[in-house]
């Protein structure tokens, strides 16, 4: 049997509530880690990611991993330097050592909630983009077009740069072949979207006290956009919609329950109704919210980086899927033996009864964030200690166990200056075939995707 067949079954079982042969476990090598391994300056690497192809394969082959342990560059990870620099980005910047990141900025005034809520697309296109990107200046349309087209060209090149190495390993029959095409997506929770990209962390915190109802109203208006963005075209239990969660641990319970949670729950329950599994990045201490997390739709993947393991397993393990939690500290400073012992200790608590995907609490970014021999030892130890004796038995709760139904209002975008209207198009082009409608609406969706890609 090819290793890929074994792993395809393992993942199919796991995400269909059958205890698999062992705990799922994949590595994730960032391009920064591969660049460090290759001894290449990170700034040179980001000029041309394709120089990593050979070293990416070499490093990948050193370690056990269910999935190919790196992936092609995307606009999100790592944030591609050329793309953001060509646009004149203010929200993504490179540090001296060459790592792209997101410094705190605020590009919306507290007096502008009404305008954002009236027509989110119009406000984002006309007001927010020029504030986030100095080269998207609508008073200089030619220059703006040049910046966007050059940035898109650079992104296309970056996205393809690591494809040869990735495809070679993917086709080798050694790795999990992944969820069905079209079953993954990503989005943001409305309140986090406002905090992260528009008002900034501090602005949002202050607005919770002074513009509370405006935030609530604006979250409702953003909801259809963000829901549709995160709705995969072909949902499948093995796929997921990735939602990094940001604000809950920083705010009061009252703010969480009254401002953050309502639109999240509408989104979450409708995803469940569509057969979409959420992957939530829950960084920080969520102890005070465990009862609320427990009530999230069944089968949600919860990536966590801290908390009492037994309490988390007890509260969330039966209904949801836990991932993360394994301490990077031991990979940085421990011995191989300590790493193996820690893997065993964590799996003894988190693995029983299914519902745990092995992962580290904090993903390494640079190669010296971990000792390579420890990283390799950890991967081997998971395969050794993560075996189930009761493989084949059912576990957990199936997606939409609760029987939620889709809130149809989430699928209807409000009228917008930037919305596409087939009737208007048809009037202007009376001979256009009706068959063109679906295409045009797809292009309209592509446009929205691009605009939201620029603000997420």
């Amino acid at each position: 049997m090819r290793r890929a067949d074994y792993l395809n079954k393992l993942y199919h079982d796991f995400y269909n509530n059958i205890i698999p042969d062992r705990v799922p476990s994949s590595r994730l090598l960032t391009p920064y880690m591969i660049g460090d391994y290759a001894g290449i300056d990170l700034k040179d690497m980001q000029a041309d990611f394709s120089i990593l192809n050979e070293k990416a394969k070499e490093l990948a082959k050193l370690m056990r991993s269910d999935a190919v342990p790196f992936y092609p560059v995307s606009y999100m990870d790592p944030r591609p330097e050329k793309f953001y620099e060509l646009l004149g980005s203010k929200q993504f910047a490179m540090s001296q050592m060459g790592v792209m990141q997101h410094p705190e900025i605020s590009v919306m005034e507290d007096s502008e909630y009404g305008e954002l809520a009236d027509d989110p697309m119009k406000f984002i296109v006309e007001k927010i983009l020029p504030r986030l990107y100095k080269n998207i200046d609508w008073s200089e349309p030619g220059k703006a077009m040049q910046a966007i087209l050059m940035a898109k060209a650079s992104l296309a090149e970056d996205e393809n740069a690591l494809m040869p190495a990735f495809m070679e390993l993917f086709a080798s029959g050694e790795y999990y072949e992944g969820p069905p095409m079209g079953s993954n997506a990503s989005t943001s929770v409305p309140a986090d979207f406002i905090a992260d990209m528009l008002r900034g962390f501090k602005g949002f915190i202050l607005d919770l006290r002074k513009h509370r109802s405006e935030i609530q109203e604006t979250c409702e208006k953003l909801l259809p956009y963000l829901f549709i963005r995160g709705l995969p075209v072909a949902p499948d239990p093995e796929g997921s919609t990735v939602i990094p969660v940001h604000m809950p641990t920083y705010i009061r319970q009252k703010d969480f329950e009254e401002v953050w949670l309502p639109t999240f729950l509408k989104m979450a329950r409708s995803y469940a109704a569509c057969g979409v599994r959420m992957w939530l990045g829950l960084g920080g201490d969520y102890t005070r919210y465990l009862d609320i997390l427990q009530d999230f739709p069944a089968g949600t993947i919860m990536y966590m980086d801290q908390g009492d393991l037994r309490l988390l397993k007890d509260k969330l393990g039966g209904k949801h899927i836990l991932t993360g939690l394994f301490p990077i500290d031991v990979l940085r400073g421990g011995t191989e033996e300590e790493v193996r012992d820690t893997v065993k200790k964590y799996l003894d608590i988190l693995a029983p009864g299914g519902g745990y995907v092995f992962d580290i609490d904090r993903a390494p970014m640079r190669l010296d964030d971990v000792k390579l021999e420890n990283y390799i030892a950890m991967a081997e130890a998971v395969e050794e200690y993560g075996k189930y004796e009761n493989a084949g038995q059912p576990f957990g709760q199936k997606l939409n166990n609760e029987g939620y139904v889709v809130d149809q209002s989430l699928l209807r975008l409000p009228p917008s200056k930037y919305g596409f209207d087939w009737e208007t198009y048809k009037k202007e082009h009376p001979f256009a075939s009706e068959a063109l409608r679906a295409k045009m609406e797809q292009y309209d969706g592509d446009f929205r995707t691009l605009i939201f890609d620029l603000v997420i």
Partner: protein
Amino acid sequence: MSDFERLKAAMGDLNEDIVTELLNHVMEAGGDEAGKAMDACSEGMNIVGELFQKGEYFVGDLIYAGELMQQAVEILSPALTGGAEQSDCGKMIMCTVEGDLHDIGKNICISMLRASGFDVLDLGIDVPADTIVEETKKNDIKIVALSGVLTLAVTAMQKTVEALKVAGLDDVKVIIGGSPVTEEACRQVGADAWCNNPQKTVEICKSWVG
């Protein structure tokens, strides 16, 4: 309850309306008691820090408290002589380490440290070890606080501690903090203390200046 006790309590409760009203009273009365009002606000900030430590306040509350403190300084500053902030705890350095551009946690800590009497030299973000060593020497600093959010910040902290040692600055106390920092990370970095709580940071730094 005197107005200053009310002011301290209002600051602790994060009640902006009462804080502003009481500060305006002080200024309307000629501003002679602006110094006392500032002290009351600082004591109120300590209450905020304590409530954070108890898990009753969260990071958002600290940010809001920082804004209130800033407002207080703005209202009182025309009547404050010789600078609004006391600095009887001496000078220290705080910054985000090399490779990391995050500054929210650093800024919260700095506002709490300043409210507690430290004269904090803020070196900013993405600060290389060499710069920290240089500024420590130049300003005769005895406490260095290092902040970071990214995983790689721990390695940068370790390099900074090593650079301070190499420069012969063994007597400088180093405290580290931020989301990737744990007790184990502190041991690996070789720092004197760690913490992810601004009030605790203040307490540790105060214990170092006696």
